[in-house]
């Protein structure tokens, strides 16, 4: 035991002498040891910093749940209220589906109407009149080119220059022109009406696929088509009025030319009788 203590004392003495001889190395080692030494850990119960942090976090938690949680739950309640209102009152799915179903049903009615309008109404019995009638009922504006020929075959040409006075020939030609134009317009209007019915069917199909937000866009397109259809109706009405106007003018022209012709014929007869 005594020997061991003596050896320990000797070792310590040697270390002390070595350290005395190597002061710089010892200082450097001490410095590095200080740098590397781990920092002290703070205990939860004794250190005041942890208590402050605990109180702070608790305060933050309470504030978050009261201020942010309360505010968010208020917003959620209003949002739910708005959602319920929009779902039940503004855009109820059942009524939207019913409306779409009705659009299909209306389309069915118009398909029925269209099939009724396709039934042939031709009634002419002679070859020349059948040609003209077929042309007039063709609903094909590409056939307008043949209307003039078929018309002349039924109603005759404008008399030659030696067969009638120029005034009468003018009235005849003008009347024929307006009658032919009206017939051509009738073919055009029939063709346009067929295209409008086709477009209406397409628009109806797109309404059935639409959403409440897109239906007004389709409605706007339909409204544009309606305006267009109104314009074509106006054009047809205009041609009808033209036919009647020329008819009236023709009746007046007949009276005028009759009076002139009678007067000229009477004068010629008087001249002849005087000569005899």
């Amino acid at each position: 035991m005594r020997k061991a203590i003596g050896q320990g004392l000797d070792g310590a003495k040697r270390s002390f002498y070595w350290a005395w001889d190597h002061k710089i190395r010892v200082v450097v080692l001490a410095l590095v040891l200080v740098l590397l030494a781990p920092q002290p850990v703070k205990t939860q119960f004794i250190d005041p910093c942890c208590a402050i942090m605990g109180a702070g976090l608790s305060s933050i938690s309470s504030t978050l749940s009261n201020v942010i949680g309360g505010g968010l739950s208020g917003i959620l309640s209003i949002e739910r209220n708005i959602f319920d209102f929009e779902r039940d009152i503004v855009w109820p799915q059942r009524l939207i589906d019913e409306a779409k179903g009705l659009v299909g049903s209306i389309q069915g009615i118009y398909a029925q109407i269209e099939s009724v309008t396709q039934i042939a109404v031709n009634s002419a019995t002679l070859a020349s009149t059948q040609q003209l009638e077929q042309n007039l009922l063709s609903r094909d504006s590409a056939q307008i080119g043949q209307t003039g020929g078929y018309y002349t075959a039924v109603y005759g040409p404008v008399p030659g220059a030696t067969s009638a006075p120029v005034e009468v020939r003018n009235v005849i030609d003008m009347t024929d022109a307006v009658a032919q134009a009206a017939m051509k317009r009738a073919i055009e209007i029939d063709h346009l009406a067929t295209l409008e019915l086709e477009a209406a069917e397409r628009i109806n199909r797109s309404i059935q696929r639409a959403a409440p937000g897109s239906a007004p866009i389709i409605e706007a397109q339909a409204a544009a088509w309606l305006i267009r259809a109104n314009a074509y109706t106006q054009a047809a009405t205009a041609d009808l009025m033209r036919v009647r106007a020329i008819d009236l003018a023709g009746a007046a022209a007949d009276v005028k030319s009759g009076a002139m012709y009678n007067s000229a014929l009477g004068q010629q007869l008087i001249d002849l009788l005087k000569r005899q």
Partner: protein
Amino acid sequence: MTIAFFLLFSWLMVTTKSRRQVVAVTLVGTVGAALIAPRPAMAQLSLTGAIQAVLDIVNGSIQAALDSINAVRSAISAFYQRLVWPVNLINQARAQITQMIGQYRQRMRDIFESDVGSATLAATGQLEAVMRNKQTSDFNAVTTYFRNAFGPIPADTAASPEDRAMTDMDDALALGSLKTLKASDAAVDLTLDAADQLEDAASEAAPGSAPFLTAAAVVASIQSQALTQKMLAAELRQEAARVAHGNSERKRLATNTNRLGDQIINLLKRN
């Protein structure tokens, strides 16, 4: 890591022989120690300040923002329910439609369906009945009754080809119009059915389903307009044929008058 570094550094420091080696090991050691040394802890005073700052933000700007959002959403909700889609006005609109259906629909139907037939003879009564029955399956009967009332096309020995052609064309277009009108009458009834269905649906519609009905109604208007155009086209054909007929007679009259005048003058000249 730190312990291993310190043990290695201590061993090197003890075992170095020269002063130069000591300096080198010292330099390397201090740089290494500076790199792996733990960072200093924060002071207690700055922690309290940070917590307070968080609380201030939550109680200040975040609470104010949430209050504002809440106020705006409440205003939007009230705006929707009181101004844009007030339930009482929606119900009022539906009730008005139902009331008007009751008030007008049957009354107008009764007016429209009152009998306007006026023929007194058997032949004309048949024609009148068939041309007003709104059927599209009896077009042959229209032709038969039409011929009974207005007579057939003259035989080729009884009239000139021009007269036969014109009367045939006149009859054809008149018959065509009568048949078209039978189809139009049928279409009118179907169109009225469509209008009734749309109005019924409108009486139960919601603001979100009404645009579908409006769009369908506009499309139905296009279709009605197309049918009106078909009727107008028939009228145009008929009017044009009437004018053409008159003009054709004018052509013949002009030619005949010219010929007659020449003949009279020639006769008088001979005497």
